[in-house]
């Protein structure tokens, strides 16, 4: 007797697919749970974690933001190998405004978000008309080159960077701002990508001539996606500038480019939630592995390769599938 694997929706999933869900607590909980878990979890975690792990949570939020930014770009047909560019640009704008003009973090951070995003978008504008691979290459090179430029021209503090910047009011503010931004970005941009606007962006990824043929200026939409993503990255950079009270060449480090990609790939590209999940897994993991030093990055590299080849859908899709469906073996019908 030959058997095949069959996947069907769970009973509760089928029951909760309709308006009648609102009549049943069980079904409502089933739907709400995956959304409430991260929200409640993220809001409560800072209260129960010690100071060191609070910093880790902060780091998780920042890398998750970078991963979300990467994912939005990837869904819009742009593969970025240089999230560090967005991060570093935001970091420097915030640092410069704080140091040379003395503006408070509550002014520099929003300013850096918008201006940093604008600068990065302008910088990458010429590449948008080319094939995707150019975008990947240019985003890889530019942060690395910018490091050399800063080193050579010694602007903005050169190799030493700018230190003694204003901090945020307290560690609580730091963590909660990061977490709040993460939750807002995750749910807000998920909404955006599910809307018709997001459909256009995904269409550009799928078949850009078809979108052009529908009377839509794909370059303008790519610019918008790029601005949104780079603004998110710039926000992360600006926030960290004020957390560390320092900005320097390390903000363009390869680490900030690679870890977000690894997080998105491990968690599942194509869903912003996957990127977040990946960050929640990889960042604490890398903290735990701090003892092994440089081997960390070797692991990131291997993770990237293994996941992209063997489990390209990512962990989030896998979990989602398990949550909504179950598998069983059935006989092959004659």
């Amino acid at each position, binding site marked *: 007797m030959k058997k095949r694997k069959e996947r069907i929706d769970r009973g509760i999933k089928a029951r909760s697919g309709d308006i009648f869900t609102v009549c049943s607590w069980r079904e409502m909980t089933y739907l709400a749970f995956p959304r409430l878990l991260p929200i409640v979890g993220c809001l409560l975690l800072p209260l129960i974690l010690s100071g060191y792990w609070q910093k880790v949570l902060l780091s998780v939020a920042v890398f998750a933001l970078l991963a979300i930014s990467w994912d939005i770009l990837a869904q819009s047909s742009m593969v970025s190998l240089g999230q560090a560019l967005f991060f570093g640009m935001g970091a420097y704008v915030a640092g410069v405004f704080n140091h040379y003009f003395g503006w408070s973090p509550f002014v520099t951070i929003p300013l850096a978000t918008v201006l940093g995003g604008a600068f990065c978008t302008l910088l990458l504008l010429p590449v948008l008309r080319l094939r995707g691979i150019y975008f990947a290459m240019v985003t890889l090179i530019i942060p690395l080159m910018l490091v050399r430029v800063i080193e050579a021209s010694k602007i903005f503090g050169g190799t030493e960077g700018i230190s003694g910047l204003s901090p945020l009011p307290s560690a609580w503010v730091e963590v909660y701002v990061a977490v709040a931004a993460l939750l807002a970005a995750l749910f807000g941009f998920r909404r955006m990508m599910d809307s018709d606007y997001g459909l256009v962006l995904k269409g550009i990824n799928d078949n850009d001539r*078809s979108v052009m043929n*529908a009377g*839509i200026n794909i370059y303008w939409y790519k610019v918008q996606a790029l601005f949104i993503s780079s603004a998110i990255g710039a926000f992360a950079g600006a926030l960290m500038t004020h957390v560390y009270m320092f900005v320097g060449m390390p903000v363009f480090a390869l680490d900030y480019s690679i870890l977000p990609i690894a997080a998105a790939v491990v968690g599942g590209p194509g869903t912003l939630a996957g990127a977040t999940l990946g960050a929640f897994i990889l960042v604490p993991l890398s903290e735990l592995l701090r003892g092994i030093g440089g081997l960390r990055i070797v692991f990131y590299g291997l993770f990237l390769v293994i996941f992209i080849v063997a489990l390209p859908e990512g962990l989030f899709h896998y979990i989602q599938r398990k949550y909504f469906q179950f598998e069983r073996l059935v006989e092959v019908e004659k």
Partner: protein
Amino acid sequence: MNARPLLQVSQLRKAFGGVQAINQVSFDVSSGELLGIIGPNGSGKTTIVNLITGFVKPTSGEVIYKGTNITSWAPHRIVRLGVARTFQMVKPFYQLPAYKNMIIPLYSPRVKGLAGGKYGDRNAVALDLLEDVGFERDSFVAYKVASVLPQGYLKRLELAKAIALQPDLLILDELFSGLSLAEVASMVPIIEKLRQEGKTIIMIEHRLKELFRIADRILVLNYGTKIAEGAAEQVMENDAVKNAYLGTEA
């Protein structure tokens, strides 16, 4: 009928490297007519469409639509003026269901402008449009992912995407290719209805019998040059056309 032709193509030339794909082609299309463009393979029919719709820039020559010179305009700007085309090799969004495919044209600035800046429910409009081209509502075909649809439905989807843009000039590139006789017969009424709505249509076709029944005028291309133009019967009696299709005796 307007005094000024809707579309004027004059002295178009296009060379790809050393190959002269289009050589001094000129023709006019009047508002409300159905022009058929035929010719052997490789004669440049799709290139003409690409030149008119902005996907390829001409080496020289002009394309004038509604009095505006649209030569070398970007495709999306031309679409906004009211020109829509289908692709010979259909380009659906394979990952999306059929009706979601329609959302993208419905999102375009052209539709937004015509609707006065507001839309209705795009999903409902999409389903209606698909029904108009033959996606039976009660079989829920419109909800199927495009990658599982057969060619007949994909061609209809392609047509629906073009119609969604509410064009004044509709260019159909080999719409009938790959379809059975029954499928072609079922699509002809759709085209007739479009004509009744006052749309101008250009059809590139290989299936001459079906085309001659509905076309007002025929234009024949061979090796990038226009070799005949006129009513269907005239054109088929033309010696040059016969040579192009059937060849000459050695």
